[in-house]
């Protein structure tokens, strides 16, 4: 039989149906479009050439590519990929290769199997797009792309002579729409598994906060309104001023640059019975491993690590929206004792630079006699002298940049102030470090979640104090208290604000209606992340627990069976149900029901007996008005005017029922 089934694809004169070919070309465009930014431009060029070539083949002007041309193209493409400077095994390299293969296949797409290969690659590219971006907009776009690709597949199986891509599109749209209920069931119930092996990663530069900060180099801190993460608090959220989202710890300083020191081992264990603030974070992809949490995480998912400097990291880079639950205890004491190694690490200054600040720090420490006193003195100096907060500070020298800032320019943003304070403390051997992360955020009134954006990025200082452990100090609060209390917008000077993009200022609450709309979109995106993008093993376990009580494979199997069966029944009912050809005569329906009932009672209608004669016979048996019943029934059955009379129809129904009951009684009586 196999040889018969394959007859379709192997015919010498097989032509991909024109309808399907057109849809295939369109679906290629649709599928490659969102990937264009991730692949080299020359690949797009190759694709355009191949597309043109195939069109010419279709028109009968050119032939298919000859063997040597194909070989040449493949070799050229491999060399091209090698020269494009991708990191080996990066996701971009893989995607480029895929798109290239996809394009080249176009010029030798002759038979049915080739067309199917192109279709399957299209589906694969749809999935690939989600590795780069998982927003609602992309998902909606790719759903439409799936309709187009599926339409191409439908076109492959329709009659070859007709050209009607629109009809194929409708069939495909219907198919996908009807597949959605089952998709939903699978999405909810299909067990989510931990990664099986390591994979090529997108090599795009990490976004957001960087692991190296050089405040002196920044002449104009760009204020991106890009989303950093969203957080949902279990209970009452804390005050804005207390929202210090700790992410990175900069323990090394050299040549004006703060950097993360060598990696540390994770802290051994979590607190057994955690108390504190519980919340869930939906972190946007950063392509880095660091995570953000409030001070101090005491309970978190087992797959996450808390390093010895109390920053939380993920085992692998965050490539798609990552969802994690944390409980933070604000009263937790970080590092009761400081090991000698840690002490050395957190007081280290690699070079004897910034002599004025060192001198100033020594003098200040000697004068105040305590760490707290010294910090307070620095804060006072910032408040009382002409220090100012700005996003466009003067550029500083590499060496002695902190001296230059603290004594001369006196203009800067958070890193300048935090850096100066950390340096001053370290220079008198007090353990101190700069911490980077986000401060504040805004609550979306629609869903109540906190939205933290890139412009909420912040840096502050942590100082180790005996008995108190690592303690947070924020010198920026001294220069711009509004920044901490009410967010960046409140702290901005007019010229800084003018430099903001329209969207950024709208997001900060300057746009009225626009702000409301943006908040609405944000709440949509949040729900999307909550229910779709962030639906991982942990979230699934929660949902299943709520749904099934106990999560066992058997219960999941049963739930899948029931859910899948129900959704399929729904579809089957929709597509297999055929409406009855014609509405039957109302009295005829009543009468045939009566006939069936009487047949069950053992008094069936004889063959050739008219309805009137039948009723007359039965009514005679029951000693009712046989003649009258016959006349009335016949009128109702055959006289359209009588049929239209609803009261008469009710009447005959009652009469027939009465006749039935009387005869039932009678036959029962006879039997006993």
């Amino acid at each position, binding site marked *: 039989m196999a040889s018969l089934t394959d007859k*379709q694809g192997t015919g010498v004169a097989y032509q991909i149906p024109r309808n399907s070919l057109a849809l295939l070309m369109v679906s290629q465009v649709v599928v490659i479009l969102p990937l264009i930014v991730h692949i080299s431009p020359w690949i797009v060029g190759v694709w355009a050439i191949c597309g043109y070539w195939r069109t010419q083949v279709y028109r009968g002007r050119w032939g298919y590519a000859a063997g040597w041309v194909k070989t040449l193209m493949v070799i050229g493409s491999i060399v091209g990929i090698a020269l494009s400077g991708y990191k080996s095994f990066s996701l971009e390299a893989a995607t480029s290769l895929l798109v290239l293969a996809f394009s080249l296949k176009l010029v030798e797409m002759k038979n049915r199997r080739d067309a199917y290969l192109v279709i399957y690659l299209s589906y694969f590219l749809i999935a690939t797009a989600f590795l780069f971006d998982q927003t609602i907009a992309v998902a909606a776009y790719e759903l439409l792309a799936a309709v187009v690709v599926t339409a191409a597949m439908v076109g492959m199986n329709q009659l070859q002579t007709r050209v009607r891509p629109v009809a194929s599109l409708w069939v495909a749209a219907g198919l996908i729409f009807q597949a959605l209920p089952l998709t939903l069931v699978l999405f909810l119930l299909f067990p989510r598994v931990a990664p099986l092996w390591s994979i090529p990663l997108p090599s795009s530069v990490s976004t957001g906060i960087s692991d190296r900060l050089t405040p002196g180099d920044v002449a104009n801190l760009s204020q991106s309104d890009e989303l950093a993460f969203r957080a949902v608090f279990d209970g009452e959220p804390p005050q804005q001023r207390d929202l210090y989202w700790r992410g990175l710890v900069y323990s090394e300083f050299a040549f004006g640059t703060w950097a993360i020191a060598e990696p540390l081992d994770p802290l051994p264990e979590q607190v057994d019975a955690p108390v504190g603030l519980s919340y869930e974070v939906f972190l946007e992809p950063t392509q880095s491993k660091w995570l953000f949490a409030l001070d101090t995480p005491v309970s978190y998912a087992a797959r996450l690590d808390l390093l010895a400097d109390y920053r939380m990291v993920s085992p692998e880079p965050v490539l798609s929206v990552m969802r994690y639950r944390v409980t933070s205890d604000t009263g937790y004491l970080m590092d009761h004792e400081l090991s000698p190694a840690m002490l050395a690490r957190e007081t280290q200054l690699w070079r004897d630079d910034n002599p004025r600040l060192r001198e100033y720090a020594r003098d200040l420490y000697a004068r105040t006699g305590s760490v707290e006193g010294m910090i307070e003195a620095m804060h006072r100096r910032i408040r009382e002298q002409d220090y100012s907060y700005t996003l466009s500070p003067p550029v500083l020298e590499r060496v002695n940049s902190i001296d230059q800032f603290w004594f001369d320019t006196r203009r800067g943003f958070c890193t300048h102030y935090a850096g100066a304070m950390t340096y001053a403390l370290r220079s008198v051997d007090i353990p101190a470090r700069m911490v980077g992360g986000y401060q504040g955020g805004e609550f979306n009134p629609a869903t109540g979640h906190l939205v933290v954006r890139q412009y909420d990025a912040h840096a502050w200082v942590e100082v180790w104090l005996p008995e108190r452990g690592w303690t947070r100090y924020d010198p920026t609060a001294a220069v711009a208290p509004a920044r901490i209390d009410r967010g960046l917008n409140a702290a901005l000077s007019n010229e800084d604000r003018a430099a903001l993009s329209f969207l950024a200022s709208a997001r900060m609450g300057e746009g009225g209606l626009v702000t409301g709309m943006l908040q609405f979109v944000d709440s949509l995106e949040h729900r999307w992340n909550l229910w779709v993008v962030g639906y991982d093993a942990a979230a699934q376990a929660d949902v299943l627990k709520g749904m099934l009580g106990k999560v066992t494979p058997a219960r999941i199997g049963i739930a899948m069976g029931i859910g899948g069966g129900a959704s399929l029944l729904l579809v089957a009912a929709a597509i297999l149900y055929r409406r009855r050809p014609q509405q039957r005569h109302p009295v005829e329906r009543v009468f045939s029901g009566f006939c069936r009932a009487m047949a069950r009672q053992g008094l069936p209608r004889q063959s050739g007996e008219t309805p009137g004669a039948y009723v007359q016979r039965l009514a005679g048996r029951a000693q009712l008005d046989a003649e009258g019943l016959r006349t009335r029934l016949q009128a109702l059955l055959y006289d359209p005017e009588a049929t239209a009379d609803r009261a008469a129809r009710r009447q005959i129904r009652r009469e027939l029922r009465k006749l039935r009951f009387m005869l039932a009684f009678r036959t029962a009586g006879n039997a006993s």
Partner: protein
Amino acid sequence: MQAATQPERAIFGKRFSAWLDRRIPPGRRITLSQSNIFIFPTRSGFTFGGLLAILILGAINYQNSLVYGVAFLLGSMFVVTILYTFRNLSGLSIELAEAHAGFVGEDIEFEVRVDRPKGRGREGIQIGWPEGFKQWVEIYETEADVVRLYVVADKRGWLRPGRLLVETYYPLGLLRAWTWVDISARGLVYPQPIFQDAPSNQASSQHRDDGVLIDPLGSDDFVDIREYVPGDPIKNILWRSYARSDEVVVKRYASYVEPRLIFDFDTLAGGTEEKLSRLTGLALQATRSEREFGLRLPNLEIPPGLGQVHLDNVLRALALYGIADR
């Protein structure tokens, strides 16, 4: 119940054939339903399954919910397709509309009628016998379609092409729904004609009648004269005789026709099949030259006659000679 014919045995094997006969009994008109439609993934369907597996692996390794989503959507689509492909065949009625007779070596034409119930149109259906070409059926605006199928006739008698394959890959080509229906199709195959150089050779000359057959309405030769009857052609009136007497007399003409031919099985040389072929050739030639002829077979005799109906009778007798007409 009719046993499976030869080609089917070759394809299915005896057992499966017997099972099919029980499962989908032969009939004049067969309506497709869940009891006689089979569905199985095609090779493309299995490849599609492979694609899904790769997507799920990717989703697991990238921990990407939306890649899971794509895989699930495609998987669900595959499942829904089962219903679609089933619906595309379900409810169709298939019957043989007409079978055209032909000669051995020719393509015998069968007209198969496919009716659909009210409701959705059907498309992408292929229909055909294993040894013939498949035809596309599309019943969209109309409610029935007639397809012409051709099967090569290899021997005389009844050509039973056996079970008819009805299949569809619609809508995605991932699944194939098919059935083998036996619509009791049979077409008559006449022996392959052998034409001889001289149609009126000794076989026919021996059967020349004693008297000469006269076509009284012919116009070749003068026969006699008789009294005028109204309606006789005026040019036949013998005017000279009319001048002599008052009698109106007309000349009568007649044509001589070759004597009626009787083609006799027993007088021909060769084996049975060769004889039948020769007789077929003779019958065709006689018909072409518009000469009456009769046929004499060992078991039956067809009196002389002329015309398409007569020829059909003769050819049918030749085709079925020695074969039970069932």
